[in-house]
């Protein structure tokens, strides 16, 4: 992810009457990432997007793709190698879905059989059977189907870059979610550099590898969804991400965001007496039992200790094994789901070596989300 694919250098777009749409923008977009430009309407996000395929020419500054100044590339040539999806889809109503998908390969003069093969491939990818849909006209398709065709059309000639301008914006909420999920899957397969414009923070967080938050033609903050949600730079960013509603975005946080590091842990060879003392001292209801390699083996609670009258036996004889280990870097929501399924109040978190790093509990979820 370190190769800069698209570079914007001091880019400004000023319209007659000194209307500044984009103001001295600097941005590196890396290869194979999905970069989301997000902001309120009129913030310059679409203008920025359209400068990348030269539908709009910057007033000042330079844009580079693979290090090449795009103002030196013929705009038609440039666009043939950049996929483009817009909110209104813009399917040609006088062409069938198949013909629509085939437009760019045809413009690029691919051989006929190669085009046909590619079109079928794309129909499969977007989950619409080619034999049914390739001969249909856009007016015979639902909004969601049209937008899928729009995405397929943009990907048809396998361009390294795809620009998407609120592609799911005009769809109803349910269709939108379905298409977003499908698109996430497609995104993993296709390995493209995608610049995505939206005003929907949920969508941005869900799809984006990195976000750029824009206001009045300027980038206010750039970072991963997680960085931005955790550390919004200012009040504007807070308002965009809806900081007061952060609980909705547990899905982008990771296990380490909820990690309690000083989890009580005790070696499996310790006697019950030692465990009892330890638990009293640390005022805890249960402790994690670890082996010599610091790997969590199980848990022991007061009830387990009271099972035995012999306080000299090692704790490994009474412990309850844990069938769940959460690894660092896991998605927090997934981790909590696993805990809930097993009805566990907490779960040990381990690193790559299986070494105990701490625990997560349901108790501090709200504490962290509301802090």
């Amino acid at each position, binding site marked *: 992810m370190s190769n800069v694919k698209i570079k914007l250098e001091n880019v400004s777009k000023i319209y007659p009457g000194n209307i500044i749409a984009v103001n001295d923008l600097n941005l590196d977009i890396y290869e194979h990432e999905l970069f989301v430009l997000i902001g309120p309407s009129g913030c310059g996000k679409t203008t920025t997007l359209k400068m990348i395929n030269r539908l709009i020419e910057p007033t000042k500054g330079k844009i580079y793709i693979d290090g090449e100044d795009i103002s030196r590339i013929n705009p*038609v040539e440039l666009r*043939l190698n950049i996929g483009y999806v817009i909110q209104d889809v813009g*399917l*040609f*109503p*006088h062409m069938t879905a198949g013909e629509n998908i085939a437009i760019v390969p045809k*413009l690029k003069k691919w051989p006929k059989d190669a085009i046909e093969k590619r079109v079928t491939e794309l129909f499969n990818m977007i989950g619409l059977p080619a034999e049914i849909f390739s001969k249909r006209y856009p007016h015979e398709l639902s909004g969601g189907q049209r937008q899928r065709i729009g995405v397929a*059309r943009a990907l048809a000639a396998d361009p390294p870059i795809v620009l998407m301008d609120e592609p799911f914006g005009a769809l109803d909420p349910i269709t939108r979610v379905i298409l977003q999920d499908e698109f996430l899957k497609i995104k993993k397969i296709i390995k493209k550099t995608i610049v995505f414009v939206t005003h929907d923070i949920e969508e941005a967080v869900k799809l984006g590898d990195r976000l750029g938050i824009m206001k009045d033609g300027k980038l206010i903050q750039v970072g991963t969804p997680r960085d931005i949600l955790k550390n919004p730079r200012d009040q504007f960013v807070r308002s965009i991400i809806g900081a007061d509603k952060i609980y909705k975005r547990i899905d982008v946080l990771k296990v380490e965001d909820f990690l309690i590091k000083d989890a009580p842990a005790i070696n499996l060879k310790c006697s019950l007496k030692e465990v009892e003392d330890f638990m009293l001292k640390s005022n805890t209801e249960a402790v994690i039992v670890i082996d010599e390699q610091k790997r969590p083996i199980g848990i022991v609670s007061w009830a387990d200790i009271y099972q035995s009258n012999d306080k000299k036996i090692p704790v490994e004889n009474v412990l309850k094994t844990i069938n769940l280990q959460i690894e660092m870097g896991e998605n927090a929501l997934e981790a909590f789901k696993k805990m809930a399924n097993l009805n566990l109040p907490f779960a040990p978190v381990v690193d790559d070596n299986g070494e105990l790093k701490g625990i997560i509990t349901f108790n501090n979820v709200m504490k962290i989300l509301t802090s």
Partner: protein
Amino acid sequence: MIFRLIEHLQLAFYSLILALAVGILIGIFISKYTKLAIPIISVAGILDTIPSLAILSVLIPLVGIGKPPAIITLFLYSLMPIIRNTYVGIREINPAIIEAAEGMGMTEMQILIKVRLPLALPVIMAGIRTTATFNIGITALAAVVGAGGLGTFIWTGLMLMDYDLMLIGALTTSILAIVTDAGLGLIERRIKKRVTGRGG
């Protein structure tokens, strides 16, 4: 009779084809340079308000009698609906479609031929239908300047007070106009259905 019918159709359709060639080009031109649209459509509109007999008479000293003044008159009459419908047809295309076409890397010319014109075709076709039907009517007048056609029967009949002859001329002209209108209407609806999925 058949000869006059063919002559009539020739007059009406030669002028129409001429008007199509010029009118569509002007229509495309003003859809691109929109500042010229209103003046040009207005001028073409004024042409339409001048009585056809007046134009015919004015043209006689310039191009003589016979078919030339008739074809020129019909051509001038046909221009306005074709220019206007081409212009409207192109301007009415959803801008998102044009944006998508540009964004995909189509050249100006490719967009015109593969997108704009096919999508404007139903509206242009409506213009053609109006014009063709109208032309058939006006062509009947052109017999006055010796252009021939079915109008010949009407004028001859008028001069000879031969009502049968007049009626033959009038009826055949009317039937021709109605058939043309219906036929072109059918084509228009087919095109519209293909392009937009509606109409028909």
